[in-house]
């Protein structure tokens, strides 16, 4: 399968305003991000708040322009081609936000919200064709009969239904890739699984690739199935590879700490007291990110050599940014 999108050594930095007396400071939010997403695959991006996962999502959708590196869509540099090409790309890469209530215009009906992008991008469609298309996508996301929802306003729907509407809007332009940023964290627990299943279904039936951004390892594992997972920390990818390999046999100390911290819904397993292999609970602020290994301050296995620049190592097809990955104690979970 060809790559649909490639991030090549992408970096992103923002300027922090210093005020009257201090100089402005540049803060690197992302450093050396390499990420390839194959057509029809699902990639989960996990990390804690502030690790840059949402920024990656915004770069992929073209909402932010990276300050360094290259992003290629279907082999072509996204910022190299003309504006019309760029808008066509924007059509093929869609974004689903976390807060479904904020993402829909509260004074527009669902029909208005769904028809606007279709009418904008398919100017030659007749009203009947637009309606047809809307009925189709509504059926695809499981909101039937469509008439029951189309004339409603966002506040009249439940969180799960609104999230389905967002999915419907995202697939209305027949995209190749959908970036979903925490799509289930704000909806009720009993509905989460059905939204995740919907994403899997769209992936299988329509061949849409997904980038699933989350802080929740359990749902990331569920949705990625056989796909890849990318663990981020302080703006860098620390581990990237097949989801079962990464979660079953984590090779980076940070991934290990994350996995040990996730509670399991089974009291017999969960009550076994197991310390988290981590030195401090506080995340290092981005401004004083260590120069070498980003996890240096908190890593229980780090030594002096970890302070210098490190490269990716490849173990069992997993890309891991750790010098000591071979020396880590055996992983028991």
């Amino acid at each position: 399968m060809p790559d649909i999108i490639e991030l090549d050594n992408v970096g992103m930095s923002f300027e922090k305003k210093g005020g009257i007396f201090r100089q402005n400071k540049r803060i690197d939010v992302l450093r050396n991000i390499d990420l390839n997403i194959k057509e029809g695959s699902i990639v989960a991006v996990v990390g804690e708040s502030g690790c840059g996962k949402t920024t990656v999502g915004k770069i992929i959708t073209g909402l932010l322009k990276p300050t360094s590196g290259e992003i290629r869509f279907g082999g072509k540099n996204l910022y190299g081609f003309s504006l019309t090409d760029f808008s066509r790309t924007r059509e093929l890469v869609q974004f689903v936000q976390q807060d479904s209530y904020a993402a829909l215009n509260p004074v527009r009906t669902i029909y208005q919200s769904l028809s606007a992008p279709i009418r904008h991008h398919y100017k030659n469609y007749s009203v009947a064709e637009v309606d047809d298309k809307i009925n189709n996508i509504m059926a695809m996301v499981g909101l039937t009969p469509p008439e029951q929802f189309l004339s409603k306003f966002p506040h009249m729907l439940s969180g799960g239904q609104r999230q389905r509407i967002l999915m419907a809007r995202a697939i209305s332009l027949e995209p190749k890739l959908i970036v979903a940023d925490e799509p289930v964290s704000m909806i009720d627990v009993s509905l989460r699984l059905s939204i995740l299943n919907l994403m899997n279904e769209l992936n299988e039936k329509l061949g849409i690739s997904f980038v699933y951004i989350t802080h929740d390892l359990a749902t990331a594992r569920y949705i990625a199935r056989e796909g890849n997972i990318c663990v981020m920390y302080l703006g860098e990818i620390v581990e990237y590879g097949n989801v079962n390999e990464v979660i079953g046999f984590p090779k980076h100390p940070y991934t290990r700490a994350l996995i040990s911290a996730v509670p399991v819904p089974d009291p017999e397993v969960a009550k076994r007291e197991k310390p988290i292999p981590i030195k401090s609970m506080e995340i290092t602020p981005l401004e004083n990110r260590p120069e070498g290994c980003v996890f240096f301050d908190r890593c229980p296995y780090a030594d002096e050599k970890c302070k210098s620049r490190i490269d990716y190592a490849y173990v069992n097809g997993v890309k891991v940014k750790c010098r000591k990955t071979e020396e880590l104690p055996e992983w028991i979970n």
Partner: protein
Amino acid sequence: MNIVEIRNIVIDYKLKKYSLRAVDNVDFDIAAGKITALVGESGSGKTTIASSLLNCISSPGQIVSGSVTFKDGEREIRVESLDENSLNAFRWEKISMVFQGAQSALNPVVTIFNQFYETMLVHENYKPKDSRVKITKEAAEKRVRYLLDFVNLDADRVMAAYPHELSGGMKQRVMIAFSLLLDPSLIILDEPTTALDVITQDFIFRLLRKINRETGVAMLLLTHDISVVAKYADYVGVMYGGRLMEYGAVEDVFRDKLHPYTRGLINSTPAINKDVSLLKPIGGEPPNLLDMPSGCKFHPRCPYCREECKTIEPETFSKENGHKIKCFLYSDGEDKCRI
């Protein structure tokens, strides 16, 4: 031994044209020295129940009937009938609360130490005149220092800090230290880790369990995350649509999964170690409080729904081990819905 006993409590939110029944006929005990969890989705009534323990249900909510009894040694305090003055003394001294979102619970323009000190001074004033002690700043400092050390914070730095100078996890730990300030017998924790990351979350819960084991303070944990319940709680109550659907020891509830809703919740929660193909979503939508289904509130989503479930609301049936289930499937004391 129970520290709080809630009996047949009914709480309504009275609006102009109609009233919402947020909690209906709930019987619920909180065991002394244990961690009891209430788990439920938004709108299931768990925060409303917790507020009734402090009699601080936000307006226009009110307790329509039922009782909340707090056991203070030999004394029994009926919380729902306390007057304003005794309530002020009761709150925080007997039952304290760690609110959802520590960020907004702390006063942004007062240093952490002064917030602690103020609370101590105010509560001294609620005591009868002859038993009041003058709290010196030094004594208060000693106490606050002890508490902040207890939650693994650098006391010197934190005491002089304003809330914005602390990270989210630190603020949450300050709130936990704050809740211990007056030596309460029960702490209510309302979603104590919602805005925090997984590693911080785990750290906070380990800390809470340590506090629970070392000081013997009882805790009521409100959460929507059953994984957290499995890991940290001793007892669990499952709420749905304002009803307590199931209650029992965590091990029993998770092993037997008797109520169809509990079973649905457990079977639909992705876990990091479980086979993903076994997961099954619960169909349908959570109930709308304005338009509650008749009969059992879970019946429109229940795979075991029968004719009687649609019209009659089931009573609560108890098993010998204290496990309680509100479902007709157990009306003759037998487990008939095993898969």
